[in-house]
């Protein structure tokens, strides 16, 4: 599988009156073609900031201070305004959390489709635009006669499906979904995500899926990255991240979601509160809440390192995988300094 997007050492700062606050710190990952990558984390951990940065939609006071974003080998950060205009929506499009806020309340859906096609010069006449829009509505199972309705005439779930249809209007290669179903009921949520998955299979785009609901993410995604206060702390195949977590934070998150089936057991959650990014302590950011933090954790900040073939973790002393006994090969290369070898010994 080839890489569609590659993010390397991305740092995003917010300029505040009290100086710079690093909302995303040294994050690296890639998205393969046709893959669904999930980013999970608490509010304020920087997952949405990453999504905005990928499309360069971030605005001051946010700014990308370090790192690189490559989309099919092209440097997104070096694009000028015209290139960005081409890049957005045609290559990458985004679905936001609140569909109500992305649709213009005083224009019909038809007009808003036409607006997209017209801006990108895809259609020569309004009739052609209407035909294309109807086709898109059919894809997301909305009756085509609703095309001339206003956003308020749709229910929440339908509105979100209209927004998804719009995001797919120019057949993008990457679809970024920032908490697309948080405001919806569970039944509607599942229907929409099943539709999205089906469309992904049909058109072969990749998805960056952002949410705080880990259970949902495990069901939908291929790989999951877990973020904690601006850092990517673990990246693993979806099915392994809850069953065999390496990072104590991922373990704690797994212990925070009661399940609907199976044995009912007491859950512990994670003690303490999320970090205030305005004053980040030295060492590991999770150390104050970690159940196995040692003095070493408070001194040296762990970097994301490859733990085995598919898994990356940023922890001085990661948890052990129960089923795995043999020592993995020493890490080949990661973006961090090779001098740090502490990470591997626990495996």
């Amino acid at each position, binding site marked *: 599988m080839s890489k569609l997007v590659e993010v390397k050492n991305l740092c995003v700062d917010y300029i505040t009156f009290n100086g710079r606050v690093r909302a995303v710190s040294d994050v690296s990952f890639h998205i393969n073609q046709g893959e669904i990558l999930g980013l999970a984390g608490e509010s304020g951990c920087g997952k949405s900031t990453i999504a905005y940065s990928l499309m360069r939609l971030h605005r001051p006071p946010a700014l990308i201070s370090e790192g690189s974003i490559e989309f099919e080998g092209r440097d997104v950060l070096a694009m000028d305004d015209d290139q960005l205009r081409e890049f957005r929506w045609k290559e990458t499009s985004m679905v936001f959390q609140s569909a109500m806020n992305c649709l213009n309340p005083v224009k019909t859906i038809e007009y808003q489709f036409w607006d997209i096609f017209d801006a990108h010069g895809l259609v020569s006449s309004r009739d052609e635009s209407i035909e294309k829009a109807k086709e898109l509505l059919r894809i997301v199972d909305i009756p085509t006669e609703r095309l001339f309705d206003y956003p308020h005439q749709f*229910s929440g779930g339908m509105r979100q499906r209209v927004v998804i249809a719009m995001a797919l209007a120019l057949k993008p290669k990457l679809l970024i979904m920032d908490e697309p179903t948080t405001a919806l009921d569970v039944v509607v949520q599942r229907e929409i995500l099943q539709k999205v998955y089906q469309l992904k299979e049909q058109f072969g785009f990749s998805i960056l899926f952002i949410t705080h609901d880990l259970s949902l993410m495990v069901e*939908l995604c291929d790989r999951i990255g877990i973020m904690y206060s601006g850092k990517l702390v673990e990246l693993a195949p979806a099915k392994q991240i809850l069953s065999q977590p390496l990072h104590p934070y991922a373990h704690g998150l797994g212990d925070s979601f009661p399940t609907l089936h199976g044995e009912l057991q007491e859950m*512990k959650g994670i003690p303490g509160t999320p970090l205030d990014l305005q004053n980040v302590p030295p060492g590991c950011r999770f150390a104050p809440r970690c159940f196995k933090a040692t003095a070493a954790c408070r001194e040296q900040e762990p970097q994301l390192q490859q733990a085995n073939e598919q898994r990356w973790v940023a922890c001085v002393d990661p948890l052990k995988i129960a089923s795995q006994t043999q020592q993995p090969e020493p890490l080949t290369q990661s973006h961090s300094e090779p001098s740090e070898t502490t990470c591997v010994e626990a495996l």
Partner: protein
Amino acid sequence: MNTITQSAPSSATNINASTASEQQAQFDSQYPLVLEAKNLTIDFRKKRSSFFGPKEYLRALNGLDFQLRAGRCVALVGESGCGKSTSAKIATKIHKASEGAIYYKGENIDTLTRSEQLAEYRREVQMVFQDPFSSLNPLHTIRYHLQRPLQIHHQLKPGKAMDEMLVELLTKVGLTPAKEVLEKFPHQLSGGQRQRVFLAKTLAIGAEVILADEPTSMLDVSIRIGVLNLMNEMKHEMGKAFLYITHDIATARYFSEDIIVLYCGHMVEWGSTEAVTQNPQHPYTQLLLAAVPDPSRSIHEKLPTQRSMETPMWSPEHKGCPYAARCPKAMAQCSQGLPEPKELEPGHFIRCHLFV
């Protein structure tokens, strides 16, 4: 009148009439009944279509019954707009029921008219809101928020004794160091801490019944379970009665003993939480539970089929089962009359024509 007969810890296998009533008596003494809702129905006036048009009503709740017992929790689950919060608002006397009533320790709350009776009711029945960011006054310290109820409801004077009380309260809800937290303002605390302050406030007032309206849905995922565990402690150790309103059925299973599934203001299935969540029988409950995200399943699993997506707006003139329009198993009688409740097994009730 249908009520939730709680599935009492029944170790005896053959239950004859006398032991059943004995068990009920034992259950009653272990978990005394505090607040009871009987046949709660509420109609809201809709905007008239024209000035001379007829008055139109929307039926937000239709015949809701529940019993809150000390040391136990009833969860109300359902999609948004199904009347979950409205029922808590009736219990706090924000809305008045059109039919039916709430009984607090056997007394109809509509008959509480003297100010001291009302004050007592409000002291003992407290609500916890969804949004801890707007339910605390940003201009006042935590000390102020906790002192006020003690001064107003218990006529205590600020001083050393009260300070000790406040520290004890905050320690109980897990906010330490308590002395420092007392002087903080709400904006200096995280969402989870604020929700804990709110729970400390209900303890300061001395509430017996806590109506928790989505208390964890605005909190960060890693602290939700902590707040739920605190409420669990309040339930088991301090014997508080909880009404837990949520759309997250997995947490309802974690926290509550009994559950009521609401659809469109109607109780469709209710009973002990384990029975309802592990063995759902009503087509709506089955759909709802199939849609809950679960890491052990995959997104490709098909939902039970539905005939339509729209939830009806119920009015007093409507007849039949509210789910009939969506239900894949709907029959002719489903749109004619509301099915009578039926007990499937001890402590598991359903309202569906399929089971009559």
